[in-house]
């Protein structure tokens, strides 16, 4: 069940050059509803021209500590205002929203009898939902592998946290960390075989990974970030073209199997 909740900020930490990690205190009835890949709609209070809520993916949900984590890249006035939050402030959210990443049964089918080996690919702040998914996969006895990309080292987010969760490979466009280039050029892709790929990041990156997955015959799902107004399937603003026609990313997604999309 979705709800409108006021959550207290337990901590607000700067991450990388331009992001903030918000750890929000959340009661069990809120965390119990959440699944990896889902998102929240955050009300931005106090920013002059920020009218709509901002969709932010769940970076992590820690049921034991009673926390919901949001990783926010400060790109516009609204997200910069979120970056000004301090411990003790409250944040109003509509949550949880959207469908989420694949469940175990789907991963098992994609593996077709082989060991389940999911590769989680993130670009920029798109790494955010992959942490929650990776942590959840581990609770299911599945080892995630991460492949993270950014323009440069200072824009890599939560690297130590990902490394603590599973094998983590990195590319930067300027070569300041990991292998130089794009995620699709990383050597791990030619050395190992994965049974599914789960991507969140900038559009061109997701399309490149989707093309790679298609060429290799690997199941691939992407988490889209289309601009939204309501987040509830009412305004029909965030639509993506699919084989079924225009559908709302907020309710039918944000996670789509690439075969459902009309990407070439």
């Amino acid at each position, binding site marked *: *069940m*979705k*709800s*409108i909740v006021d959550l207290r900020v337990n901590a607000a930490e700067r991450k990388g050059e331009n992001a903030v990690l918000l750890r929000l205190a959340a009661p069990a009835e809120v965390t119990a509803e959440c699944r990896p890949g889902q998102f929240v709609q955050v*009300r931005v209070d106090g920013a*002059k*021209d*920020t*009218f*709509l*809520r901002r969709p932010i993916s769940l970076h992590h949900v820690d049921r034991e500590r009673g926390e919901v984590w949001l990783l926010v890249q400060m790109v516009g006035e609204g997200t910069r205002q979120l970056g000004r939050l301090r411990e003790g402030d409250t944040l109003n959210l*509509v949550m949880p929203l959207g469908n989420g990443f694949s469940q175990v049964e789907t991963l098992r089918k994609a593996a077709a009898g082989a060991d389940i080996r999911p590769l989680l690919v993130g670009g920029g702040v798109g790494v955010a939902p992959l942490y929650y998914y990776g942590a959840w996969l581990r609770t299911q006895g599945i080892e995630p592998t991460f492949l993270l990309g950014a323009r440069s080292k200072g824009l890599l987010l939560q690297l130590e946290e990902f490394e603590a969760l599973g094998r983590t490979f990195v590319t930067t466009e300027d070569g300041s960390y990991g292998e130089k280039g794009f995620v699709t050029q990383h050597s791990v892709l030619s050395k190992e075989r994965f049974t599914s790929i789960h991507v969140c990041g900038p559009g061109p990156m997701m399309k490149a990974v989707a093309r790679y997955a298609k060429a290799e015959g690997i199941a691939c799902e992407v988490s889209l970030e*289309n*601009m*939204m*107004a*309501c*987040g*509830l*399937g*009412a*305004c*029909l*603003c*965030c*639509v*993506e*073209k699919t084989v079924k*026609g*225009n559908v709302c990313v907020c*309710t039918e997604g944000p996670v789509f199997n690439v075969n459902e999309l009309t990407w070439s």
Partner: protein
Amino acid sequence: MADLTTNIGALTLKNPVMTASGTFGYGVEFSDFVPLEEIGGIIVKGTTLHPRQGNDYPRMAETASGMLNCVGLQNKGVDHFCEKIYPEVCGIDTNVIVNVSGSSPEDYAECAARIGALERIPAIELNISCPNVKDGGMAFGVTCEGAASVVRAVRKAYGKTLIVKLSPNVTDIVSIAKAVEAEGADAVSLINTLMGTAIDIEKRRRMLSIGTGGLSGPCVKPVALRMVWQVAHAVGIPVVGLGGISTAEDAIEFLMAGACAVEIGTANFLDPAVTVKVVRGIDAWLDAHSCKSVRDIIGVAE
């Protein structure tokens, strides 16, 4: 507790607060947040005779105190509504009203007739004011002749309460209201969105896929309120007011301007529970001001 009941012609509402078409889905999308039966009426998303894919993405741009949209009437058509949606919504204990759009008077009339056959839909809202489709919509709503031609065709095919939603993108909205009144409309609702645009200065191009969109949100309220006052003082049929309402105080302004009921639109995106808050807020205001009925304040503003 004051008496909140109000009427739109023959239609009785338990309170004057309805949802604006295209901002509340079919109601069920909001059932986690709002007891739907506490809303005076739910006007569901625009329905056309044939399915429509709507316009390409991007369909939305945020503005100061509002937003632009160019959705373009995406819907699965009236047959889908009758077969799939109606069974889901007909049990909601409030007035479920269907917003009907089209690209010719005949389209409108046929769609209205199909909806008219549904027992639990007591009214339709005729959308002659969508600014986001080329083949119809607002084209009818911006001239007296166009508006009259659609209402004339629909009136012959539809016997229940007929509300006609007017466009603000006209020189004289009063003359359009009078034209649809003369053709037998039971009520008018206003305003639909105001046509606008926004430009991405880095990309040096307009943000919306079709260039322009309809502006909604608190920024349009003064314009809407002025038009509601003008129309309510010029026609004999009931007026439903909408445009930027997000609080009980906003709604009371529209009632005092002469609206017998209001619709809440864009505010649903910011607070999915806003409708019921406005209902309770109107009730509290009436109590605090010793008004026994919401009808006591309709049209009181000089």
